[in-house]
């Protein structure tokens, strides 16, 4: 059974976002709501469809993730890069603010 989350880009700034457990669109992949199996995935996509219609996000789709000790991590490298930012510029993308937050 695949474990998936739904991702999209925010209409306003194009930022990569995920549907979170509390039904909002979060920038942090770790806060994404996880769906197990195809029924739950369908539910995620349906909620995303509303957000697309409401003009919050664009181009929503499902991605496979692994969840270990509660930590959500995308499977494909492309999605890892989307979740963090360019691998060659750690000062850009989401990883930039995570770094500052950690510092």
């Amino acid at each position, binding site marked *: 059974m695949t474990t998936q989350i739904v991702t999209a880009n925010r209409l306003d700034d*194009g930022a990569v976002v995920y549907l979170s457990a509390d039904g909002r669109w979060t920038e942090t992949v770790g806060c994404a709501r996880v769906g197990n199996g195809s029924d739950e995935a369908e539910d995620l996509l349906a909620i995303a469809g509303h957000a697309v219609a409401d003009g919050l996000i664009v181009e929503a789709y499902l991605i496979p993730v692994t969840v270990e000790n509660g930590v959500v991590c995308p499977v494909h490298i492309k999605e890892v890069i989307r979740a963090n930012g*360019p*691998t*060659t510029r750690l000062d850009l993308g989401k990883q930039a603010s995570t770094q500052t937050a950690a510092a």
Partner: protein
Amino acid sequence: MYRYDEFDHTLVAERVSQFRGQVARRVAGELTEEEFKPLRLMNGLYLQLHAYMLRVAIPYGVLSSLQMRKLAHIARVYDKGYGHFTTRQNIQYNWPKLPDVPDILDELAEVEMHAIQTSGNCIRNVTADQYAGVAGDEIEDPRIYAEIMRQWSTLHPEFSFLPRKFKIAITGAPNDRAAVKVHDIGLRMVRNEAGEPGFEVLVGGGQGRTPMIAHTVRDFLPIRHLLSYLEAILRVYNQLGRRDNKYKARIKILVHETGAEKFTAMVEDEWAQIKDTPLALPESEVARIKAYFAPPEYDTLDDNSPEFDAWRGGDRDFDLWVRANVAEHKVPGYAIANISLKPIGGTPGDATADQMEAVADLADRFSLGEIRVSHEQNLVLGDVKKRDLYALWQALKTHDLATANIGLISDMITCPGLDYCSLANARSIPIAQEISERFADLERQHDIGELKLKISGCINACGHHHVGHIGILGVDKKGVEHYQITLGGNADQNAAIGKIVGPAFSGDDVTDAVETIVETYLDIRADGESFLDTYQRAGLEPFKERLYAAH
């Protein structure tokens, strides 16, 4: 350079205000994404991996210092402090916000720039030799004709919805620095027997998943027929190009499937009907545009500059820079100075806002206020006095812009790859960085000599890997980044598509593989042979043998 007339100003201003309305309606929910997407693409606005991406046209790669300062300002205020110069002489911003884009376009319009036709199935920014107007080997300045084509193609109603995007490149010199043979239409200025200048017309080159070298459809086209002939080619393509299959839609496929001869005959037929219509270029119009590109008043200088020679003799680093980065100028005492955007370990083609401003200042101080962007993702100052080169080089050094590697192995064309591009299969930039670190030693790079290495992160071939002497293509193998290597490609007047050397390498092995290829060349090269010469003499085998010996 060309300055907008009132029509240009009005057109661009109206376009920005139209787009401002479209963005407002999108944000207010009056337009769906489906409705909005084609509208934003018509204004060069993509949605990429992390954010929107705005592609701004730099017509035939020519910029004033004022325009460069504006590009810097946009990078600083609306983006994350940098921009990316591309192989089509455009600049891309990677992080603009949607509501800011109309403001950015307004700012661009202030300096006669825009993002129209930087996307979509239309005639894209016409590219040209970055040494146009100053090259010693030039027949005529190609920017005049690039500008004429720009005016003709901008918002051309018949060619706004072609089967696929359409790219034209032009060179005024026999030495092709604009890669005309891998464009949909390539134009090379030539002279006929009477000594008159005209164009050799090439059609159907291209990269992407089916790379092809263009066919010559006409050996000599008189200047006055430039537009009617282009119109005939595009009309045939527009009517017969495939619209059912995106991958077969480029003109190269039409030429290939029809056969170059038959295709040429169709173009000639179409042309016969329109060649003497108002599309024929009156001499007065050519003269009007020519006036914009009239050579500046050069000082009368001795071609020999004793100061320059003394600096070269006294400073090894400066000498290396001159050897790689400085090219012959047609006027005595002047030189063409290339500014490398490929610092060791950097991102090829990226420039920070500070660097852009520095280049603008240096262009004002040393090069008549003008800058060019090369299709190899570097910048060029076209009119530097030889005796100013040392001061220029010192100033460039303080901005990390003096890497002496033009045409050498670390001067790689590199597409954004998986770090930015939503179409990518693998990363390009980290590979480029690792290779450039490995070959950081400039003395060694100079010993290796001319070597064009080009990297793309997917089969679309934005990084020109097919025509790299060494080409690297990122592929996805079961979710893991791999890299396929080709050898023997070439983008100049002897253009060729590279051959795949063997199975792909993992990301960890690709730099070693490049090293093996270079070492093999150094071992077997004959006196005076470049990498490409050696490859052409010895073929793929010796390289293949060494690369896969352990397997």
